[in-house]
């Protein structure tokens, strides 16, 4: 009778060799198997696709130009032609109320806002701005924070002290107050903001993108710098140094690959945070400026219609909720997938 050890050896010989997988592939596989994270990703991508299809919806489905007020316009509800703005009743006839949701995709699906514009079309166009700013500022923030963290963590000493203190100064300001202050100042440059040879219009989407990216740099800097500090003392880095690798090579070839996972984990969460920040600034009229729209500006426009036309505020709020929720769940999934301590049942 074979011993247990002999049986294991036989089994090993009979089974084919296990193909090696790199850590990224393993992480991807773990993520793929996380159904909730995948559902969140699908939801997020669905939102992105819908927003990208905004011109298609506005032009070919709803037949509206959501950027032009339509106060004197008419639409069709239940086969009847009705005015988009409806005058109040009673003896006084005070006020003009926009039409409510018709639930007809081609006729003011979610109703109109206070200037007679199609809310559904605005919602999709607004999503483009919100997502663009959210994703753009998260990427900009991550890149800037990573570069600063690499420099600070690698060189250490005075460089690290100075950069860390600079980050502390920025972090000391309440995030929203800092964003409000910078936005308010930049918006007064009505003839544009001069950045070297470039002149950026004060109403450009770049302005809120850069402001939001700037205020969140310390939040990404700290964890990345911590990771850099832990990697910089590893043996493989010492080995690379002993082989004569330059600082640039050490940073980009040895250290960066080992900290990028931290950035990747933070990215979905940062996108969620920056989308929320953009919505807040736009709600306060110091984020996205007309003629651009965003979910935050639509919410602000709807505040005067909360009692009679709540969908003007509910719809963009729901979009923000779903987007942020999906990104947060996805971020959790990505973090779990990139956790090196996670066990994986590898199939033959």
């Amino acid at each position, binding site marked *: 009778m074979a011993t247990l050890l002999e049986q294991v050896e036989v089994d090993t010989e009979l089974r084919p060799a296990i193909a090696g997988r790199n850590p990224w592939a393993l992480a991807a596989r773990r993520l793929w198997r996380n159904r909730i994270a995948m559902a969140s990703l699908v939801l997020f991508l669905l939102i992105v696709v819908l927003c990208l299809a905004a011109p298609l919806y506005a032009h070919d489905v709803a037949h509206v130009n959501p950027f032009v007020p339509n106060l*004197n316009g008419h639409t069709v509800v239940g086969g009847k032609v009705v005015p988009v703005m409806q005058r109040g009743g009673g003896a006084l006839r005070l006020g003009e109320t926009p039409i409510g949701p018709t639930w007809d995709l081609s006729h003011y699906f979610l109703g109109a806002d*206070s200037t007679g514009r199609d809310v559904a079309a605005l919602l999709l166009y607004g999503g483009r701005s919100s997502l663009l700013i959210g994703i753009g500022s998260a990427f900009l923030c991550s890149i800037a924070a990573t570069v600063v963290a690499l420099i600070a963590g690698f060189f250490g000493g005075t460089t690290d002290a100075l950069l860390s203190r600079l980050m502390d100064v920025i972090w000391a300001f309440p995030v929203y107050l800092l964003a409000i202050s910078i936005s308010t100042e930049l918006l007064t440059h009505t003839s544009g903001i001069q950045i070297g040879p470039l002149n950026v219009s004060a109403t450009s989407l770049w302005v809120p993108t850069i402001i939001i990216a700037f205020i969140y740099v310390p939040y990404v800097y700290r964890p990345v710098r911590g990771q850099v500090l832990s990697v910089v003392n590893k043996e493989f880095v010492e080995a690379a140094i002993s082989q004569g690798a330059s600082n640039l090579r050490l940073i980009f070839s040895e250290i960066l690959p080992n900290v990028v996972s931290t950035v990747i984990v933070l990215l979905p969460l940062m996108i969620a945070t920056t989308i929320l920040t953009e919505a807040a600034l736009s709600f306060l009229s110091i984020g996205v400026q*007309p*003629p651009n729209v965003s979910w935050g500006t639509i919410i602000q426009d709807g505040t*005067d219609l909360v*009692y009679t036309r709540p969908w003007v505020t509910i719809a963009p709020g729901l979009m923000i909720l779903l987007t942020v929720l999906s990104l947060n769940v996805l971020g959790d999934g990505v973090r779990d997938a990139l956790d090196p301590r996670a066990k994986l049942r590898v199939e033959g």
Partner: protein
Amino acid sequence: MTRLPATMLRRSRSRQRPPARRLPRWQAGLAVPAALAVLSLAVAGCGSSGKPSSSSSSPSAQAAGHPGGTWTILANSAFGVADPAQNYTAEEWQLLIDTHDGLTGFAKVGGAEGNKIVPDLATSIPKPTNGGKTYLFHIRRGIEFSNGQTLKPSDFVTTFERQFTVPGPTSFYSDFVGASKCSTKGCNLSKGVVANNSAYTLTLNLTAPDPELMDQLALPFAFAVPAGTSPKLTGNNVPPGTGPYMWKSYNPNTEAVLVRNPHFHVWSAQAQPAGYPNEIVEKYGLQVSDEVTEVLNGEANEVYDGDPIPSDQLGTLNSPKYAGQVHVNTLAADYYYALNTRRPPFNNLQARQAINYAANRTAYVKIFGGPSLAVPTCQILPPDFPSYSPYCPYTAGSSHTQWTAPDLAKAKQLVQQSGTAGMKVIVDATTDQVGKALAEQMVADLNSIGYKATIQLLSSSVQYPFIQNSSNSAKWNVAYSQWFQDYPAASDFLNVLLGCGTIHPNSDASPNIAAFCQKNIQSQINQAEADEATNPSEAARLWTQIDHEDTNAAPWVDMFNPKQIDVLSSGVHGYQWTSVWNILIDRLWQG
């Protein structure tokens, strides 16, 4: 007068006069203890009160038949500094007319009668002498301030000198002899405001005739305060007045409380009747929607009429249930866009007329709340204003008295003829809902006739000085603004807003925002002002002509004349409204 966020009304009158300036807050803070010390000395050292020169009934007797009680007003925010020499808000003025009096006053009665000037602390309205430069007032005897001090003619010297030392909007009284040398450091109007306490007369000597002086003396800036009142800003402490009420307290974070003045008696029911409520309280801090809810529920009496009702609550007010509680009145005001005549494209008459033809005034009216709350207009003077005669050349159709619809074909033709098609235009407006929506509509109107318009939004508190200051002229082409009357005189619109003398380069107080100045029109303005005292009918005719000529020259796109809503609790009686003070608070009672 222009309207800022809800409760703040900021007016700017600077016809070749120094603009009003505010003291820094730290100086205002130091002024309060000094003022209190002076006031306490004044109260301690007050002389004999004397007896009334004519018999009169006590306040309670005057209000007999109507319950006293407390009248509660809800306002979103307070009105800032309470010193009547400086405060320029309708919110405080509605209370000051109940606590203070001037030489003259607007009759305290609703409707058109409320625009009439009547003698108040003066026994009569004097006729000017010395070529219109001297007015001799006889002051009523036996009137006391709320601190028991007897009113004397010399009190008016302090009142007018404070206008320069506090400082307040000095342009109203800068024609007094000696005023040109007055400043915040000191003011001596002994030659311009001559008081004779024995004869109880007050002589006003002017450097030039001012036919609107009686109106200006009826403004709260000229309301009498005791002679010992500090020349500096009294901050949130209001000096004693002679009205039926007195200020018990004012905390801008919570409330203002007015109680009956025990030293008041009625000397002229037309100018200053006794009030009905025993106490008037104005509370601050609620959202306007909450104010409306509380008043409709009977928890308070009045929504401050300067707080704009949110559009989705207007529907609630339409209910027949509230029919007796909602009052709508037409304001003597304009909502307009000033066109920058300093630079292209609107330094071109045809371009200015083009946008006037293209302006979709129906849309502007809908943004403001519909035809029940705004009436479209093309001209400067508001309806029912002195010298108003309906005129609107910028409309489709043949009528030239009423706007009906835009004329886009004519507008596009004018744009082509002007050679300005395709030019970039910046529309400057405020960040509030109405300002933003109006700007979006204006952009659409400009784009529809061939311009490339964009929006620039600024906070209300920043936008008004921004567009007035010529150093910002290169940053906008079309600027949103509003103007509310100071008093019912055509010059308050036509000269203050479109006269050559009200362009002040590099100043935040230059109310002629469009920088419009045409010599032929200005000479007519000068003639009309000169004719006011000697030939009022000719003056009225000239003002009408000026209004129409200004409209033809199109320095503005005039959008609409607004209406105002008063929301009151149920069971309120005595509602009266004037275009000068709006709702007369002390005439109200709840039965």
